[in-house]
């Protein structure tokens, strides 16, 4: 049997090419190619990101205050993530380290609205057809239309959960997609009593339905335990933000990396020097780079981000219902679901429940209707903003000149962190399910099922032209630092 690691590259001539193009029910543009020998053995399997854009380059020379509104056009599914990560970086540029309570809470409300709508979209609209009908079920039915025909209540709940998240965004950002609510140093609006009432009327339902969605994924695991726990599963390092006390916090925190065995690689690292932790590698067959943890090195230092990493890597979830579900998830079948690639779906629904609980709490907070919206401080030349987007850790980094124009920008988007892990999942599935067999549409869909578990946002990944800042250390034989060179 071919080992999945050797599937990454091959120079053997005369192989037959099979492409899954375009990838469907994922966000953005990508394709998978397989190379097969005469006996149908898979010799190579790759996920390619096929577009190249230039956001970081063309925002150079633009005013800093424009950036939170422009860079969110990277992505129509998670614009709020980019809107807020850019705003957090620009807070630093305008010299603000702590927002007013109203601004902080409005931004959190917007962000958790985004988590909720994005997770609902991914589960109900995009992934649920595979899980409800089977990975190799009839292609014509394997979509949201098929779900609506067979499980009308479930489809309706998915649509309404997403609507609720989008409404939270509309009220805090001014618009459901590509809003303008967050600005350097704060926000430009707060929530009126009428808006608060409107959202409050729906939030209880959102909490209940999110809870039931967690239970649905649990049942899917129970019904098909062996398949679900083994499918595309492999050990991986993880990277995430956590709050000071180790709690799950999707808006702010320090960087934590854990090894595949659960050991801590680093913890509570200040993200404003993220480049000391993460390096990147280029491969000729993808526009998406391959990041790795510098401490571990390029071979073994690749890692995963996103819901599965966050839910299993935090010390606790600071809301009661989601925390109870987290404990159940970790304990399930001796922890097998928490290690499984399809465990991403379960973790994602736990986060959706957490988001609904956080929103409910904020809607009871008088601060969200406050009038103190913006702060200003001493201008700075450099700002880094990091948050946990629906798909994982999102890094924005800008340098701004004295005239307020952007001179340099670097974005590392969530999906890029998962590049190697997704390629491994593709190779794993190719080796386990496709090798030596007559390839059918249903078998090929298995590869997409593995990719969908990560909820990749290929638009984000293709827009970004990561430019890593560089930090070189000269160490002596004992490992102590003799000299350091930093370029940012």
């Amino acid at each position, binding site marked *: 049997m071919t080992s999945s690691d050797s599937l990454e590259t091959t120079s053997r001539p005369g192989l037959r090419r099979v492409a899954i193009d375009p990838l469907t029910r994922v966000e953005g543009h990508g394709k998978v190619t397989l190379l097969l020998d005469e006996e149908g053995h898979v010799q190579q399997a790759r996920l390619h990101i*096929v577009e190249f854009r230039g956001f970081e380059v063309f925002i150079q020379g633009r005013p800093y205050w424009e950036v939170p509104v422009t860079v969110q056009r990277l992505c129509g599914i998670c614009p709020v993530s980019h809107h807020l990560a850019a705003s957090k970086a620009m807070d630093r540029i305008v010299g603000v380290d702590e927002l007013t309570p109203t601004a902080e809470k409005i931004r959190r409300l917007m962000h958790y609205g985004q988590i909720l709508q994005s997770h609902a979209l991914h589960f109900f609209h995009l992934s649920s057809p595979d899980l409800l009908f089977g990975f190799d079920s009839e292609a014509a039915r394997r979509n949201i239309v098929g779900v609506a025909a067979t499980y009308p209540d479930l489809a309706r709940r998915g649509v309404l959960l997403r609507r609720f998240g989008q409404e939270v965004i509309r009220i805090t950002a001014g618009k459901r997609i590509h809003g303008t609510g967050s600005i350097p140093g704060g926000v430009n609006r707060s929530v009126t009593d009428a808006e608060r009432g409107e959202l409050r009327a729906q939030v209880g339902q959102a909490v209940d339905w999110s809870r039931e969605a967690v239970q649905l994924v649990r049942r899917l695991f129970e019904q098909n335990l062996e398949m679900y726990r083994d499918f595309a599963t492999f050990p991986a390092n993880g990277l995430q933000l956590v709050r000071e006390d180790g709690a799950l916090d999707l808006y702010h925190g320090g960087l934590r990396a854990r090894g595949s065995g659960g050991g801590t690689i680093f913890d509570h690292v200040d993200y404003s020097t993220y480049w000391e932790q993460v390096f990147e590698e280029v491969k000729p067959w993808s526009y998406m780079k391959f990041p790795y943890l510098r401490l571990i090195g390029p071979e073994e230092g690749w890692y995963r981000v996103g819901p599965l990493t966050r839910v299993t890597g935090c010390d606790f979830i600071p809301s009661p219902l989601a925390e109870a579900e987290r404990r159940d998830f970790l304990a399930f079948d001796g922890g097998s679901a928490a290690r499984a690639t399809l465990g991403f779906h379960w973790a994602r629904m736990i986060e959706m429940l957490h988001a609904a609980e956080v929103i409910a709490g904020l809607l009871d907070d008088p601060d969200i209707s406050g009038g103190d919206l913006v702060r200003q401080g001493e201008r700075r030349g450099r700002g880094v903003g990091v948050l946990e987007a629906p798909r994982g850790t999102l890094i924005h980094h800008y340098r701004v000149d004295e005239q307020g124009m952007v001179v340099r920008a670097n974005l590392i988007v969530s999906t890029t962190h998962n590049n190697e892990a997704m390629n491994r999942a593709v190779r794993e599935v190719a080796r386990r399910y496709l090798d030596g067999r007559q390839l059918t549409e249903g078998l090929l869909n298995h590869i997409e099922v593995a990719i969908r578990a990560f909820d990749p946002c290929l638009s984000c990944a293709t827009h970004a032209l990561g430019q890593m800042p560089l930090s070189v250390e000269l160490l002596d034989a004992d490992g102590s630092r003799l000299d350091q060179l930093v370029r940012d």
Partner: protein
Amino acid sequence: MIGGPPRKLRVATTSLAGCFGCHMSLLDIDERLFDLLERIELDRSPLTDIKDLGRCDVGIVEGGVCNAENVRVLREFRARCRTLVAIGACAVNGGLPAQRNHLDLGLCLQEVYKTEPGLRNGMVPDDPELPLPLDKVHPLHEVVKIDYFLPGCPPPADAIWSFLNDLVAGRTPRLGHGLIRYD
């Protein structure tokens, strides 16, 4: 339609050099989606697993044209869809991605993938599997004839809803007050 049984309009959608925001705005019609799906059939779309475009009544294209693959898909949409719709700022005029048009693409690629010292290894990705990027990002109508343009970043869900309702009913689409936006 006189005399015949009501036939569902067959609709294909795709996103080229876009951000999927226009597709999200389509989903922002919320529960009206189920009503719409009673009256149309989806062909190739990011929401289905149909990878090959069939004969369609309506093709809805988001995003501009930034590489050779976009050109191929757009021409295929034009050839197989009776009515072709450019949806959103990027499809209508190139949008934000077209801001790269004043930059030299070759230099951009060099800077990002090769000369950037933060990289372990520098090379410009050039595998044959990667479609050739174009020097400039183009709006759709520079490549094929477009029948309708829906502006906005993204067009409001109500505009998309109103537009599709007109098409389904066989009326010439007209967008009322507040539905045409250029944000």
